C-alpha cells in the first residue's frame, strides 16, 4: 500500500529502513524514525479510536505528549500494554496496535449510540443516574460501564520484562532539550557542573527541529545537533533521550522514566525495558516548553481537527501531510508558520485569522507567498463524521459576539492554533505558586519554591533570541555558584522572524439554532455545556468543577484543555482567570508504567529472604517452609503422604516422648556489653536483673511506655559485663531500636553498648525427656548433668572442637536446651545432633509442632503479645517487680488495666473433645443471643494437644481469672461454626512445671 500522505524530500526519518506494522489487523509500512501516529497518517489512516464517553470517532490531535485521542493497545514480543499514545510510540518492525474504546470495531461502534441518546450523558450523569436502585450497580451499571469505558486492557500475564531503578546526584538537572535546555546545559557544562539533560522524545532539540530560524550560519536543527554531540562527549554531562522527568518531589528530588527498549521489537539481552531514575539535583532547570492550545468550536473533536504545531511537526520531522487541503484556524502568528510550511511543500491552505489586521514579518511572508487569508474569520463547526470533509465558517464581529453569514468551505483537515500554554507542571509540583501572565493569557511559574528555575517557553518567553540569552545566563550563574568557575561561553546571533500579539479569543459562539458540541476536554469528552451545567448546579471551586465534569482528569491531565476550561468558568462566573485559579498539578506528568515504579522489587525480590545456615539440610529432608517475617522456617518435615496436621502431631509427640530438634536461628539476638549492662536490663525488663549470676539465664518481659507488652525472651549473663539477649523473631529489629533509643536519648549516662548478633549465631533447640542424654553425647567433655547444668543455666561447650554456647532453657515445657554455634558451624552442629540423636529416636520439628508444644503448655507468644495486652492479660504479672521502676510501669496503674474483670489468658477445650476451634473466633455466653452478641473474648491460638489427644486453644477472655470451669460458646461466623466449650487453665500440660526442671 503506498504511503499516499508521505512527501519525498522532507523529514528526519530514515527512508533506507522500511518497517512493517499492523494496526487493527491490517498491515502498513512506515520508516525508522516514525511514530505510530506519523506512520498511520502517512498511510491515510485518521480514525484511530473512539472517545471515552460518547464513543465519537477519534483521530490525532497532537504529535507528542499532549495527545488526548490517539491511545492504543500495544502488542510487543508476546506481551500487551494499554494506554500507549500513538504519538509517542516509536515504530519498530512488527509493531502491532489496536484501537481501544470501540466495540465491535472502530468503524462500527455500538457505544456510539450514547452519542445519539437524548440525555447525552451530561456532566454528573454518572453520579445522577447510576446511584439507584442500589442493587443495579454490580449487576447492570458497573459491567456496562466497564465494557463501554476504559483506555485498553491490562495484561493478566506476568510481565516478563525487567525494570530497573537508578539513584543519581547531579549539580543541574535540566528537563527538556529545546533551545532553553540546550543553552543552559551547554553553559553549565562548559563551566564544569555535573549536568543531566533529559529529553522526553527520541530526538533532541524541541522546537528547533521545526522552526525556521538560524543561529549564526546554522539552521536551528544543525545548531542543536552540534550542541548535543559536544555535550555527549563531556565527562561531566549525562544526556538522555526518551526520558521524561515526570515528578518533582521534596528536597529537589525528581523522578525520570527512561524508555530503554520500548522502541525496539524486543528488549535486548541484559537490558531493562525501562529505567526509573531518582535524581537528587542541586539545581533544577525546567525547560519543558509550551503546548499549543486549541480554539473551541463546534464538532471540534472530529478526526482531522488538530493542533497547527502538530501539523507542522508531522511535516517537518516525518515528511507527512495531515491533509492535502488544509484549513488553518488561528488567533496568532503560529498558524501562519504551518501554512507557510504547507505552501513550501506544494500544499495550498486557507488561513482563518480571528484578528482583524495583524502586522508582522510572518504575516507578511504568508501574504507574499500568496496564501489565502481571511481576517476576522472563525470556524463555526467542523463537518464530517469520521473525518473532516468541510468547515462551516463565518465572519466574526469585532466584539467577538456576533457571527456573520455561515459559509461552507471544503477542507480535509483543520489546523488550530489558540496560542501557547507554558508547561508549568514540574514547577507547580515543586510547590511554586504560579502566576497569571496577561500577555500570554496563561499561567507561568512564580517565585521559586525549591531550587528550581523555569526557562524559555515554559516561562512564557516565546522568542528564540531572548530564550537563548536568558538560559545561557542562568546556566552560567547556577553552575558558577556550585563549581566556583567562571568560564562563560556565548552563542552566535539569532535570526528569527518577528511575530505580533495574539488575539485573546478562545471559543467560537454557537450560531442561532445550532447545538454543536464544543469540546474542552477531548479525552474525557467534556463539552462547554457540561461546565455550564456544573456551574448552574452550584459548583464553584475549579477543583469541584473538575471532579464533577471530569474536565482535565484524563490521562493527558488536561494538557490541552485546562486553560480553555478556566476561561469558560471565568467568563460565566464573571471573574478573571487568575481568580478562578488552576487545579493542582500532581505527578506524574505523563503516565508511568507500574513496572517501572515497582522496579526489581517483584516476586521473591520484593523483600530479602533470610535462610538459616541449616536451610539446605531442611530442604533435603522434605521441609515445607513458611515465611516468618523475612525468614524462611521449616513448618514441618513431611514423611510419606502426611499432611500438615499429621506431621506436626507426629513431631510434637516425639518431643514429648523422646527428643526433637528445632532450628531457632531466627530468634533475635542482641549482644549487650558494658559496666551498666545489668542496670539497662533492670530498667528495660519488668523483673529484677541486678543479681543475676554469671552463667545464668533469666526470662524477661519488656513493656512499651504505655504498659503494653512489647516483647519477651531470655537474657543470659555470659560474663561480668556481658549479656546475650534473645528476642522474638518478629520484634528483633524493634527491640534493638528501642534499646538504642533509651541509651542514646534517655539515659546516655549508662555505659552500655548493644549490637545485633542475630545472624552471627546458628541455634538449635533440643527438647524432650531424652535431650540430656543426647546433650551428653554431643558434649562429652562437658558436665551437662542436672547439677552441672541446672535449669536456666548456661555454659560454654566443646562440640567436637567447635565452640558452642549451651543454654538450658525451654519453650516446649519439656527438659530442653538451646545450643548456639557460630553461623558457619551451624550445619555441622545440626548434622551432629541428628547423627548422635539417632539412638534416642530424634526427629526434627518445625514451627507448627513448636506452636503446639507452647500452646498446650500455656506459654504466651506473638498471638497473645499482640500489641494490645498487658502483663496481667498474659498471666505474666508475677514478673512485675514491686521494688523498682521500669519502662511502662507507671501506665499499669491505669484504671482499665487494674479493672477487677480485666481480660486474662485461659485455656479452651471443646466439650466434644473433637471439634477444632478456629483462631480468631469469639467467645460468647449465649450462642442464640440477639446480634450483636456481646463478645467476652477471642481465641488467640489453637492446636491439637498431643498430650491429651484433643483440641486445645488459648483465649484472651474477659474476667478470665474467674471463668475457669465456665461453659461458653465459641462462634466463628466466618466458618459458620458454633462450638460449646469449657474454660480451663492455660497451663494445660504439666501445670507445676516439673518437667523443665527435671
Amino acid at each position, binding site marked *: 500500500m503506498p504511503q499516499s500522505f508521505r512527501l519525498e524530500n522532507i523529514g528526519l526519518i530514515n527512508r533506507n529502513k522500511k518497517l512493517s506494522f499492523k494496526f487493527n489487523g491490517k498491515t502498513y509500512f512506515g520508516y525508522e524514525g516514525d511514530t505510530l501516529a506519523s506512520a498511520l497518517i502517512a498511510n491515510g489512516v485518521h480514525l484511530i479510536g473512539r472517545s471515552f464517553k460518547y464513543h465519537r470517532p477519534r483521530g490525532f490531535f497532537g504529535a507528542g505528549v499532549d495527545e488526548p485521542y490517539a491511545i492504543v493497545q500495544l502488542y510487543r514480543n508476546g506481551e500487551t500494554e494499554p494506554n500507549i499514545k500513538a504519538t509517542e510510540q516509536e515504530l519498530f518492525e512488527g509493531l502491532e496496535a489496536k484501537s481501544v474504546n470501540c466495540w465491535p470495531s472502530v468503524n462500527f461502534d455500538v457505544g456510539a449510540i450514547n452519542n445519539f441518546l437524548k440525555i447525552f450523558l451530561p456532566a454528573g450523569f454518572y453520579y445522577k443516574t447510576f446511584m439507584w436502585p442500589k442493587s443495579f450497580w454490580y449487576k447492570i451499571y458497573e459491567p456496562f460501564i466497564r465494557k463501554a469505558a476504559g483506555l485498553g486492557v491490562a495484561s493478566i500475564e506476568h510481565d516478563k520484562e525487567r525494570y530497573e531503578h537508578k539513584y543519581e546526584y547531579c549539580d543541574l538537572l535540566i528537563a527538556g532539550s529545546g533551545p532553553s535546555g540546550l543553552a543552559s546545559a551547554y553553559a553549565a557544562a562548559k563551566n564544569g557542573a555535573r549536568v543531566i539533560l533529559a529529553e522526553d522524545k527520541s530526538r533532541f532539540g524541541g522546537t528547533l527541529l521545526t522552526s525556521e530560524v538560524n543561529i549564526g550560519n546554522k539552521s536551528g536543527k544543525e545548531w542543536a545537533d552540534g550542541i548535543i554531540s559536544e555535550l555527549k562527549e563531556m565527562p561531566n554531562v549525562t544526556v538522555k533521550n526518551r526520558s521524561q522527568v515526570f515528578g518533582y518531589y521534596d*528536597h529537589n528530588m525528581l523522578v525520570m522514566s527512561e524508555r530503554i527498549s520500548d522502541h525496539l521489537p524486543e528488549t535486548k539481552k541484559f537490558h531493562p525495558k525501562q529505567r526509573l531514575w531518582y535524581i537528587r539535583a542541586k539545581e533544577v532547570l525546567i525547560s519543558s516548553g509550551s503546548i499549543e492550545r486549541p480554539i473551541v468550536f463546534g464538532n471540534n473533536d472530529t478526526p482531522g481537527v488538530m493542533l497547527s504545531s502538530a501539523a507542522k511537526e508531522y511535516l517537518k520531522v516525518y515528511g507527512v501531510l495531515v491533509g492535502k487541503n488544509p484549513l488553518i484556524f488561528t488567533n496568532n502568528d503560529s498558524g501562519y508558520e504551518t501554512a507557510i510550511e504547507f505552501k513550501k511543500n506544494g500544499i495550498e491552505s486557507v488561513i482563518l485569522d480571528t484578528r482583524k489586521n495583524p502586522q508582522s514579518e510572518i504575516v507578511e511572508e504568508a501574504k507574499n507567498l500568496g496564501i489565502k487569508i481571511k481576517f476576522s474569520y472563525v470556524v463555526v463547526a467542523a463537518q464530517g463524521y469520521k473525518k473532516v470533509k468541510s468547515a462551516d465558517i463565518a465572519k466574526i464581529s469585532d466584539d467577538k459576539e456576533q457571527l456573520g453569514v455561515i459559509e461552507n468551505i471544503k477542507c480535509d483537515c483543520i489546523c488550530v492554533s489558540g496560542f501557547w500554554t507554558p508547561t508549568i507542571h514540574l514547577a507547580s509540583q515543586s510547590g511554586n505558586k504560579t502566576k497569571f501572565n496577561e500577555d500570554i493569557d496563561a499561567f507561568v511559574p512564580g517565585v521559586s519554591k525549591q531550587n528550581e528555575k523555569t526557562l524559555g517557553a515554559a516561562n512564557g518567553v516565546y522568542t528564540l533570541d531572548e530564550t537563548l540569552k536568558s538560559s545561557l545566563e542562568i546556566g552560567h550563574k547556577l553552575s558558577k555558584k556550585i563549581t566556583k568557575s567562571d568560564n562563560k561561553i556565548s552563542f552566535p546571533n539569532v535570526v528569527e522572524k518577528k511575530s505580533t500579539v495574539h488575539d485573546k479569543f478562545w471559543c467560537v459562539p454557537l450560531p442561532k439554532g445550532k447545538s454543536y458540541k464544543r469540546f474542552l476536554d477531548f479525552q474525557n469528552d467534556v463539552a462547554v455545556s457540561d461546565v455550564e451545567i456544573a456551574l448552574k448546579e452550584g459548583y464553584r471551586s475549579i477543583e469541584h468543577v473538575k471532579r464533577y465534569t471530569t474536565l482535565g482528569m484524563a490521562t493527558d491531565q488536561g494538557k490541552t484543555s485546562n486553560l480553555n476550561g478556566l476561561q469558560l468558568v471565568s467568563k460565566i462566573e464573571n471573574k478573571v482567570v487568575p481568580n478562578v485559579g488552576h487545579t493542582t498539578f500532581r505527578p506524574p506528568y505523563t503516565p508511568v508504567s507500574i513496572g517501572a515504579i515497582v522496579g526489581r522489587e517483584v516476586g521473591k525480590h520484593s523483600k530479602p529472604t533470610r535462610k538459616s545456615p541449616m536451610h539446605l539440610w531442611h530442604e533435603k529432608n522434605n521441609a515445607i517452609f513458611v515465611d516468618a517475617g523475612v525468614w524462611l522456617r521449616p513448618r514441618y518435615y513431611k514423611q510419606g503422604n502426611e499432611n500438615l496436621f499429621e506431621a506436626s502431631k507426629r513431631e510434637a509427640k516425639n518431643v514429648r516422648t523422646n527428643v526433637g530438634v528445632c532450628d531457632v536461628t531466627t530468634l533475635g539476638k542482641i549482644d549487650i556489653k558494658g559496666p551498666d549492662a545489668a542496670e539497662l536490663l533492670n530498667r528495660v525488663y519488668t523483673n529484677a536483673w541486678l543479681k543475676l549470676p554469671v552463667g545464668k539465664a533469666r526470662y524477661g518481659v519488656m513493656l512499651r511506655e*504505655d504498659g503494653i507488652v512489647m516483647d519477651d525472651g531470655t537474657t543470659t549473663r555470659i560474663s561480668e559485663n556481658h549479656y546475650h539477649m534473645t528476642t522474638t523473631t518478629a520484634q528483633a529489629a524493634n527491640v534493638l*531500636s528501642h534499646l*538504642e533509643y533509651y541509651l542514646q536519648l534517655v539515659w546516655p549516662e549508662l555505659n552500655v553498648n548493644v549490637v545485633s548478633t542475630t545472624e552471627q549465631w546458628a541455634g538449635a533447640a533440643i527438647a524432650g525427656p531424652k535431650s540430656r542424654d543426647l546433650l551428653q553425647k554431643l558434649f562429652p567433655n562437658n558436665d551437662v548433668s542436672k547439677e552441672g547444668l541446672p535449669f536456666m543455666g548456661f555454659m560454654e561447650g566443646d562440640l567436637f572442637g567447635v565452640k558452642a554456647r549451651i543454654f538450658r532453657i525451654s519453650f516446649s515445657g519439656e527438659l530442653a536446651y538451646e545450643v548456639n554455634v557460630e553461623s558457619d558451624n551451624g550445619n555441622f552442629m545440626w548434622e551432629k545432633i541428628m547423627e548422635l540423636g539417632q539412638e534416642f529416636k530424634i526427629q526434627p520439628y518445625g514451627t507448627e509442632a513448636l506452636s503446639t508444644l507452647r500452646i498446650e503448655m500455656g506459654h504466651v507468644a506473638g498471638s497473645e503479645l499482640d500489641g494490645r495486652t498487658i502483663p496481667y492479660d498474659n498471666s505474666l504479672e508475677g514478673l512485675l517487680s514491686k521494688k*523498682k521502676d521500669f519502662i511502662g510501669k507507671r*501506665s499499669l496503674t491505669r484504671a482499665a488495666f487494674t479493672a477487677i474483670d480485666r481480660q486474662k489468658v485461659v485455656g479452651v477445650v471443646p466439650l466434644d473433645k473433637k471439634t477444632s476451634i478456629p483462631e480468631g473466633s469469639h467467645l460468647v455466653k449465649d450462642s442464640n443471643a440477639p446480634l450483636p452478641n456481646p463478645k467476652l473474648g477471642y481465641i488467640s491460638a489453637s492446636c491439637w494437644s498431643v498430650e491429651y489427644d484433643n483440641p486445645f486453644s488459648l483465649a484472651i477472655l474477659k474476667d478470665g481469672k474467674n471463668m475457669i470451669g465456665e461453659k461458653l460458646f465459641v462462634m466463628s461466623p466466618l466458618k459458620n461454626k458454633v462450638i460449646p466449650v469449657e474454660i480451663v487453665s492455660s497451663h494445660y500440660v504439666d501445670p507445676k512445671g516439673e518437667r523443665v526442671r527435671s
Partner: protein
Amino acid sequence: MLHIKCPHCGMRSQNEFSYGGDASVKRPELGKEISDEEWNNFVYNRKSLRGKHWELWQHLSGCRQWIKVERDTATHEIFKTLKANEEIS
C-alpha cells in the same frame, strides 16, 4: 523523599531513616512520683504542629544513631539537625 543531614554521616536519603516523633518530649525520671496527668502527657499527648517542629529520627540503615531534626511539617523544609546529646536551642 526528604534529604536529611545526619550529623554523623552527612546528607542521606529519607529511606535510610525511621521517624521517632516529637523530640521535645522528656521522659520522667525513673522512680519519681508523678501525677496521672503528667504521665499521660508524656505517653499520649502530642501537639500536631503545622510549621517548625523538632523531631527524632533514627539513622536506621546507617550509623543507627538517633538524631534531632528541625523540620517544617507543612513544607518539609529542614532547618537544622543535631546529635542525640545536643540540646535543642
